[in-house]
């Protein structure tokens, strides 16, 4: 099954294990820019690694440095394989816009209704046209 999703920021098609966050996150202070580990001890997915995952984000909170953390993850090769957001996030997605200006390869960010997030598990692929597809059942 696949779902059409609007491309928010173009980038490389990718696939990875889905990581569906159940609470909004502040990337700065919440995600380690060196490793991609969720460092916020109050976050339900604390300890998970976002690198190489298809990351479903129910929203971001907190610091305006989220963009810097995402760009650093891109530069370190620790970015998610794709980002799925309910609505455009002007702060976080700047990290991808600026990384593209720097000539670095970035993952794609797409928009999908929040209600559909929990139907994703297992491996997920974001195709070049932004379509989301489950390629294995949740483990």
């Amino acid at each position, binding site marked *: 099954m696949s779902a059409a999703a609007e491309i928010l920021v173009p980038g490389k098609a990718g696939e990875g294990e889905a990581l569906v966050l159940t609470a909004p996150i502040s990337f700065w202070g*919440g995600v380690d820019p060196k490793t991609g580990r969720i460092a916020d001890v109050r976050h339900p997915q604390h300890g998970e690694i976002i690198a190489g995952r298809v990351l479903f984000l129910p929203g971001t909170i907190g610091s305006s440095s989220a*963009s810097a953390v995402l760009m650093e993850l891109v530069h370190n090769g620790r970015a998610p394989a794709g980002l799925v957001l309910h609505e455009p996030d002007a702060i976080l997605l700047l990290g991808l816009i*600026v990384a593209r200006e720097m000539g670095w390869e970035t993952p794609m960010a797409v928009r999908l209704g929040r209600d559909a997030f929990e139907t994703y598990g297992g491996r997920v692929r974001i195709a070049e046209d932004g379509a989301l597809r489950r390629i294995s059942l949740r483990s």
Partner: protein
Amino acid sequence: MSLSLSPEEQAIAAKQDGPGMAMRIVAESARLLGAPRLIPIASSHIDGALYHGDSGTLFAEKLVEGGAKVAVRSTLNVGALDLMGCSRIRLEEPQRGMARRMMEAYRKLGCEQSWTCAPYQAGHRPALGSDVAWGESNAVVFCNSVLGARTNRYGDFLDIACAITGRAPDYGLHRPDNRRARLVFDVSGLSPSFLASEIAWPVLGSLYGREVGNAIGVVAGLAAHPGEDALKAFGAAAASSGAVGLFHIAGVTPEAPDIETILAGPEPEAVIRVTPGMAAKARAGLSTAAATKTIDAVAIGSPHLSNAEFESLERLIAGRRLTVPIYACTGRHALAPLERDGRRKRLEASGVVIVADTCVVVTPIMPELGNGVLMTNSGKFAHYAPGNTGYAVLYASLADCVESAVLGKPVFTDIAA
């Protein structure tokens, strides 16, 4: 509606130089947000000069190499180094060199060397109703709410791109209609003694941010103006726990002389009636440390301490010797009055570590302890210290922080909500 750029803006965006890159970043963000045009801005506050890794340094240097300069007054938020030499930063090479290169690049772009997260207390106070592009979540919320200037929550890199182009996307909080309140946050059910206490503001800010998310609310039920430092603490906590860019307080903040004037419609969409139980839970939620007999440090000054806050600190310490250090974070603007009459020397002799240009959650300053416990009166430090420093936190008033630092163990004064 799609974005329409003026011929001049298009010509700048077509160039492969620094101003061209800045214009493309502003335009791309505007497109993402659905802004129809760009608008001129009066000033900028730039959060992008804090080192998080090499990518940000390379970006700033690319702008410098491309001949970019800021077009409007631009102050700088904290960096990763204490250039004033007040405190020792444990950042090692090569990161230290990259952080210094980044700070230098922003200086070359024409930014003011303010290095503070409280630029509004360092002489940068844009006029009511003016459009600006500010970064740093607490600075944004103060600028919008307390000064009544208009900014969105500009992320790192868009802030400097706006400063270079002198423009910002026309959307969100730049538009008067989007600044009106839809929610009422009613604190009239809390005790007057709690509302008059210092801890009310970080606690209520933290609760407010969690309750409203990114919606605009108006706080109702306050009898008196709580003072600028209280509003600073409220906004910083709200912008840490939520995506708050603007709040109003009826009878206090400039766009809300009363509730009716600032509400978007005849009735609010929701009324959050804050109970003493909710406030107590929010207060408890600011601490992560389990019951503990000792503390390892106290950190204050997020946002950076004002001169009035330093005076409170001196009064509370009253010349006593501290058992554990108090890290007091501030901007260089607050140092000059402290140098007079030996005030800084006396504080340092007591065991206060003054941290200038930066702070303890953005760069390694406090010793690395496996299971350290940090006490703070800042809702923002309480939020970020566990993830960024590894210390568990205990939240308390400034008075309790000072008593605890003197004794080396936590002391709490009960103030019922």
